[in-house]
């Protein structure tokens, strides 16, 4: 067995990347293993901390609400200072905005809702609902994920304190009807004539709008340049409305974090899943499935950041809920009819499925003892919180990833 690391992180999403970054920056020889490309490209690129209380109340200050969360919530394990520390690291490796205040920013989404979020990419800045000036949303005929007139109507109905109009124009770039978002981004980046023509098509619809929102396809590597070029022509601020996968803001965030990780000296492997482990009270090695051959990667400390039910870090069978790599205990009602509520938007038990941990984020077995001395968990594989309802997915991944990675790096083997 020759592939060895001090700290091995399983999972390449936000939690895994943050854990690996913390570990590598703390000086540990760190390796990140991710089954597929990072799932960040499926995320909106917004970084929320806590948008709503467990009772569904919109929160202005997420940090103030953390001490009142149920004790099972991962934020209670990490603590307010832990969350702040993680966000400070995030701010230092990205160009994200929002760090000037503790208050949530309200960012319009492609569905016309307003999402409370702690950090947002610079491309979303001009869209904040807290700005009082009038807004125009522009959709393209072929990008059906974003229906601008409907999103505008939705925002008006929500009572935003400014006028919003929505318009759909034909994209001038002569792309096929179902072109990938990266094609739009490339054309806008490369062709001045397309930017000019687009501005000309949009301008007559602007009215008094001082800011214009487009689908999040305004450039890939040169996003700031495309935004500014359009803003110059339109005489209005330009922003991107975050949307579903594949998401360019998510892709840009992925690039920034992988660059930071590489700079920090971590080793990264993508393409093969971790399927098991060797060891008893300690994890001695994890088993990586290399096209059918299970290869042991030895590590002193391991961080599990494989995601939740959606990310396949937690699996359900008809009779049980399990964590498939280390078979960590996942508490759940015995009767599977108690896993969910009949109301689609009800308070589902499954939304909180995940491993429970001690103060150092070590997963616990059914008796409340650490499953392994040297295994920690971070991100959506943790239970006890409903990230979709409370808008806390990114924040929990950052905070627990940072704590797990730091603790793993500092632990004496």
């Amino acid at each position, binding site marked *: *067995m*020759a592939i060895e690391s001090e700290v091995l992180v399983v999972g390449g999403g936000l939690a895994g990347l943050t854990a690996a970054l913390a570990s590598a920056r703390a000086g540990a020889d760190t390796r990140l293993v991710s089954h597929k490309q990072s799932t960040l490209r*499926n995320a909106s690129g917004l970084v929320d901390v806590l948008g709503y209380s467990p009772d569904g109340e919109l929160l202005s200050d997420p940090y103030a609400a953390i001490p009142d969360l149920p004790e099972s919530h991962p934020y209670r394990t990490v603590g307010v200072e832990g969350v702040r520390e993680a966000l400070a690291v995030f701010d230092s490796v990205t160009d994200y905005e929002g760090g000037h205040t503790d208050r949530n920013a309200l960012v319009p989404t492609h569905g016309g809702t307003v999402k409370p979020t702690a950090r947002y990419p610079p491309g979303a800045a001009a869209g904040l609902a807290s700005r009082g000036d009038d807004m125009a949303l522009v959709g393209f005929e072929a990008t059906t994920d974003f229906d601008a007139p409907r999103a505008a109507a939705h925002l008006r109905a929500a009572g935003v304190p400014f006028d919003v109009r929505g318009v759909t124009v034909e994209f001038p770039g002569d792309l096929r009807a179902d072109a*990938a978002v*990266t094609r739009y981004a490339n054309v806008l980046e490369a062709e001045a004539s397309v930017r000019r023509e687009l501005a000309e098509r949009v301008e007559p619809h602007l009215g008094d709008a001082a800011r214009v929102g487009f689908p999040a396809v305004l450039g890939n590597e040169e996003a700031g340049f495309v935004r500014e070029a359009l803003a110059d022509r339109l005489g209005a601020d330009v922003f991107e409305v975050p949307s579903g996968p594949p998401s360019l803001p998510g892709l840009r965030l992925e690039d920034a974090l992988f660059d930071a990780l590489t700079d920090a000296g971590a*080793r990264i492997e993508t*393409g093969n899943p971790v399927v098991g482990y060797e060891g008893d009270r300690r994890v001695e090695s994890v088993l990586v499935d290399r*096209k059918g051959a299970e290869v042991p990667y030895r590590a002193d400390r391991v961080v599990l950041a494989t995601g939740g039910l959606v990310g396949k870090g937690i699996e359900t069978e008809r009779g049980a809920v399990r964590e498939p790599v280390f078979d960590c205990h996942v508490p759940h009602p015995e009767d599977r009819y108690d896993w969910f509520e009949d109301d689609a938007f009800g308070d589902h038990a499954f939304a909180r499925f995940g491993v429970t941990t001690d103060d150092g984020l070590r997963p616990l077995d059914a008796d409340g003892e650490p499953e392994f001395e040297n295994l920690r968990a971070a991100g959506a594989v943790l239970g006890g919180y409903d990230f979709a309802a409370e808008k806390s997915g990114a924040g929990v991944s950052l905070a627990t990833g940072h704590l797990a990675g730091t603790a793993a790096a500092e632990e004496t083997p």
Partner: protein
Amino acid sequence: MSDTDTTPTESDDDYPIEVFPENDADLRSGADDCYKCSTCDTNCPVAEVDDDFPGPKFQGPEQWRLKQNDGEHAIDDSITDCSNCMRCDSACPSDVPLTEMHNTARGEYVEGMSKTSVKYWRNRILSNYRLSARAASVVPRLANFAMNFGPARWVMEKTLGVTAEREFPAFATETFREWWEARGGAAESRRRAEEARERRGDTGADKKVAYFHGCYSNYNTPEVGKAMIRVYEQFGYEVVVPEQRCSGTPMFANGMLDDARRDAKVNVSSMSDLIDQGYDAIASCTSCSLALRQEYPELFDIDGIEEVSENTFEAVEYLRIHEDLREELSGADIEGELEKEFAYHAPCHARNQGLERQAVELFGDLEGVGVEDVGDSCSGISGTYGWKAEKYDISMEIGSEMFEHMESAPSETGMTECPTCAMQMEHGTGYEVRHPLELLEAALV
């Protein structure tokens, strides 16, 4: 339980219900697993530059679904625009077997193609490179002249559609296998490995591997094959070089599944016999290793094929798993011809095996060399793809990002595991291109 009790039973035997007949249904789960996120489409290098190409999501799950409808839909012509780079596989968050679907669709398309068309025969000749190479290597000097003789190439482009823009790779005056035989074959390898084991104080476990050299390091770059042998022997491995044919990579990419199956039977038969005797199969070309590991079990049902798939490795990967390469390299340095900077390109087929950062990680601490990754773009040639006259421009457009990165990197030599990526790197920049095994040889042997 009464008949009126509608609560599902807990028995796993009742689930899942077999709605579809067992045959033909094996790709259905792949189509069903696709939730249309389109991440594959944003990873496709062809769709990136060719707006007419509908992308992997259409070629895979969507086309499969259309096909289920009473045979009304034939496989779309655009399947021939897929270069089989296989990037969509590692992009998919839902494990849809995209390239298996593409390979199956392409096979079906080619089955329906006119067997007298020029394109069919051009593709067949290109994908059976081994046969042309074998003939050419009988008279390598003449072949090297003739294959790059201007008027001949003009005729080839006009009649066959093989681009005249590229220079044919030179054939070695001595093939790898000729060198291997002249050196004493397996018996000599055993002798050298034993010597090395003694020197290293290695006792115990059997160290023996079967080398799948593929066509290119046999006929064109035997120095790669020789480096593989010397490095492995240095670590005490006995190497055998069994009978083998083409791995099938160019045949899959051209939908020539019958040709691929014919060669796969030979490869699986010789490799599985050796695996039974405790050997592992090692390839120095990342497309060969991917074919044996992934495409073989996906597409063919041959006795021993799973065993071969599970016991095949890329050459540097295998050493990384079994030897402390990091330690060995930390004490080594490079002097002489290879003491320089390299612009490294990770082949798409290496990505699918999780190998894209291997060379950069491995050589990062090696004294005397610098290895810089030139980014995650595709080289654009994709084996035979960039040799087709009608695909040449697209191929070069895909490659342009890599060329730019190579030129801005502090090096004038390229590095990659894939022979056709190497061709493209050389064609686009004029750089000489080396294989990581050659650097390992220089550092350790």
